[in-house]
């Protein structure tokens, strides 16, 4: 079995992994190896053939494959090494990365630093616990997307979509363009978790009905799905009488949230955040396991790939510095948040420098103030017209704010008129 050393191993060759690699290279690191389980670089973007990527990062609208290709091109031009068709099976706290591929067999790499950028996956039917029969024709939106966009097959013609996540919305449009009828998009919450522009461009433009506060209560059909029972729910997601309907369909697509694919860490390698499903990290995206960094959707689910690239670049630079043996920060500031916020990333600060804190709110707010407090002193206040769980927010923390105040950071959202 082959064993070798590498200063920076990056697990995952999607937009996060490639962006981290490029940033590490630009920070001076040359001994980088990307390990990607699929046959090509690009991650999930390779199947996202719609546009809407790259407005922030490149100032133009690209399709998923185009966006990925920009990074792939850099990786290749810079001569950064990568293995495709190579699956990482484990990472130990001493930064030994175990992997398998057809060419190498089982092998181990002793890494100087590791960046994990393995992305996320969709919540399947089982996790949603939908009762009923177990016929074919129940897919996550991403599986359907792969069938349609990559393989050239249509899973079905009469579609119901459960969940108004972005992939679900995009697939509503995609299936319609391919000649299918999307009978309904059902959302259990009173608001959509997708981007506002996707509701417009993917549903409203095609007259696809969106039922808020509705969910599937039972799946019917013995061999192939034949229909779904739908109920209306209250704020506590409990069915309310009077809202029942039966929608015949041959396909049910699930777009009910994404979960970080954090298996490499959740086995005890690093401390995890139960809300994000990813690891707890500092401003450099370093986890509780020294020299092991996390970025992109494996850390927390981002709205836009542009933000993924941005975050990954932070991890890439920091991992390069770690591999070089740079001096490290020695403060220990926790990031707290109030009851209106679901989570913040990073969860802690270990060195005094400018940092963006990403956060998500729990509910929709029309008008609110985002307030940051360091060691009991308000350091910034920002008015927002609208805050929604589907849209990630950021607050900027400067080195000065941290230097002039001692103590933890608290982010709070104060709704207007309260």
């Amino acid at each position, binding site marked *: 079995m082959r064993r070798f050393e590498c200063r920076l191993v990056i697990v995952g060759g999607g937009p996060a992994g490639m962006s981290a690699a490029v940033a590490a290279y630009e920070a001076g690191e040359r001994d980088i190896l990307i390990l990607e389980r699929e046959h090509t670089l690009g991650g999930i973007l390779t199947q996202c053939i719609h546009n809407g990527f790259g407005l922030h990062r490149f100032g133009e609208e690209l399709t998923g494959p185009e966006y990925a290709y920009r990074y792939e091109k850099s990786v290749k031009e810079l001569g950064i090494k990568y293995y495709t068709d190579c699956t990482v099976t484990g990472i130990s706290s001493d930064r030994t990365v175990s992997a398998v591929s*057809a060419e190498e067999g089982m092998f181990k790499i002793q890494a100087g630093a590791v960046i994990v950028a393995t992305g996320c996956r969709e919540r399947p039917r*089982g996790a949603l616990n939908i009762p009923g029969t177990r016929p074919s024709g129940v897919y996550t939106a991403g*599986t359907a997307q792969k069938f349609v966009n990559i393989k050239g097959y249509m899973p079905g013609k009469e579609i119901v979509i459960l969940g108004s996540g972005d992939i679900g919305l995009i697939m509503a449009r995609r299936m319609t363009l391919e000649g299918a009828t999307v009978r309904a998009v059902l959302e259990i919450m009173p608001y959509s978790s997708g981007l506002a522009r996707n509701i417009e461009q993917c549903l409203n433009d095609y007259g696809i009905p969106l039922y808020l506060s509705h969910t599937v209560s039972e799946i019917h059909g013995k*061999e192939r799905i034949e229909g779904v029972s739908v109920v209306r729910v209250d704020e506590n997601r409990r069915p309310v009488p009077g809202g029942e309907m039966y929608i015949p369909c041959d396909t049910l697509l699930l777009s009910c949230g994404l979960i970080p694919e954090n298996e490499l860490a959740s086995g005890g390698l690093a401390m995890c955040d139960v809300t994000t499903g990813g690891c707890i990290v500092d401003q450099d995206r370093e986890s509780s396991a020294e020299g092991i960094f996390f970025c992109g959707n494996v850390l927390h689910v981002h709205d836009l790939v542009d933000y993924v690239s941005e975050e990954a670049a932070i991890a890439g630079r920091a991992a390069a510095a770690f591999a070089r043996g740079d001096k490290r920060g020695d403060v220990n500031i926790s990031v707290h948040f109030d009851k209106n916020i679901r989570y913040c990333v990073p969860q802690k600060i270990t060195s005094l420098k400018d940092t963006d804190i990403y956060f998500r709110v729990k509910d929709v707010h029309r008008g609110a103030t985002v307030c940051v407090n360091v060691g009991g002193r308000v350091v910034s206040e920002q008015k927002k017209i609208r805050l929604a769980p589907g849209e990630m927010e950021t607050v900027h923390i400067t080195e000065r704010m941290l230097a002039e105040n001692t103590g933890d950071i608290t982010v709070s959202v104060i709704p207007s008129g309260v």
Partner: protein
Amino acid sequence: MMTREYDFAVIGGGVIGGLIARELSRFEVTTVILERSMDVSMGASKANSGIVHAGFDAERGTLKARMNVRGSELMETVASELGVGYRRNGSVVTAFSDKEREHLLRLAERGARNGVKDISVIDGDRLREFEPNLSPEIKYALYAPTGAIISPYGLCIAAVGNAMDNGCDLMRGFEVTAVERSGEWFTVTSSTGEAIRCRAVINAAGINSDIVASMASPARFRILPRKGEYLLCDKELGGMVGCTVFGCPTEKGKGVLVTPTVDGNLLLGPTAEDVQDRDDVATCADGLSYVERSALRQLPRLPRGKVITSFAGLRAKADGGDFIIEWSERGFLNVAGIDSPGLSSAPAIAETVVDMIGNSGFRLDRKRNFDPFRKPLDWFSRLSDEEKSEVIRERPEYGHIVCRCEKISEGEIRDAIRRDPRPHDTDGIKRRTRSGMGRCQGGFCLPRVAEILSEETGIPFLEITKASGGSYINKSRTKGD
């Protein structure tokens, strides 16, 4: 075409039919398994608790008690010969009150009389020394170290596969609709008009065993289907209990159990509900929430949101309560009413059936080249890293991971498709390799698995199904193609 002729036709490719066929394949006789589904293990043998019961449940003197205790003794050897995941993890029955303790004492006494070894009643604190996650409110527990867990469909598939390796035939999609005797021979006909001839029929048709029985002579029993629903949790929770934990039966029904599976998941269930429809394996919201509530009572710290799938199975309960293993007429043997502990009893039932056949005048000569062993389905994952690398050097497809959750390679999938009994659909691959059985439930690997199945079998991609019949995966090509 000549009608094929066999010495024995086993109706039903469940764990009972499978192990009977395997026992018969030890002898110089010809056997066919007739199965209505397109795969084996599609009935109760696929959806049950997977427990090899210690044997304290059944009343002394019943067939259930005898078969269970003997089956549990035989199971370890059978599982190791067939390469099936099996673990003697021990069972406990918990009592939350002094009244329930009396029930435990009765079970302990019954167990001792049935011949179950090392059974004892312990107090709650002692129990929590080895099961720290169990509820502090549990006062006593019955502990039976001989209880075990097994992969039920793994056992069934391996039993049929081993029987086939030793010369047995399998006909799928063969739903028996008529059994006719003429002299020394039976003609067994399917719903599609296919027919075989045989000298003896063994009816192991599970939920339909009364219907099949009545094809030969008026059946003296009736099957009352009883549904059981389950929740299967992520492997993250597989270690929450070591033993299989049963509750005492209450007025609300038979206790729900909490158990690790041999694959490392945590399984919760089953419910017990009498139903009419013999094909109805749908789950319902009430059933699933009852399972969850009952499990929480035993394991108060059971985290929510870790369920990866739910399913239901039908118990083939006979109206008389006990197993039925008897000749209904010469050459027609009913093995019916095999509800729980049918899985545990299966090796003993197979042994008994072959004895009965031998004693009834059929000549059974031992086959000299019978091979009881079968390479485990998961042989590759049992190898060390060095050994895996060796295999990958020879066959690079073992280095290609297809199912990322369970880390199953293309090589293992191709291997499973090439081995008897061959899977025809993606669920069949799942039961053989675990590909698609992890936390993403096939979200990522299904397209690739379907492709490999198509390549291996020559079935066009569009005709690949989830579970045969009308369970197509894709309806058409996209417009562009």
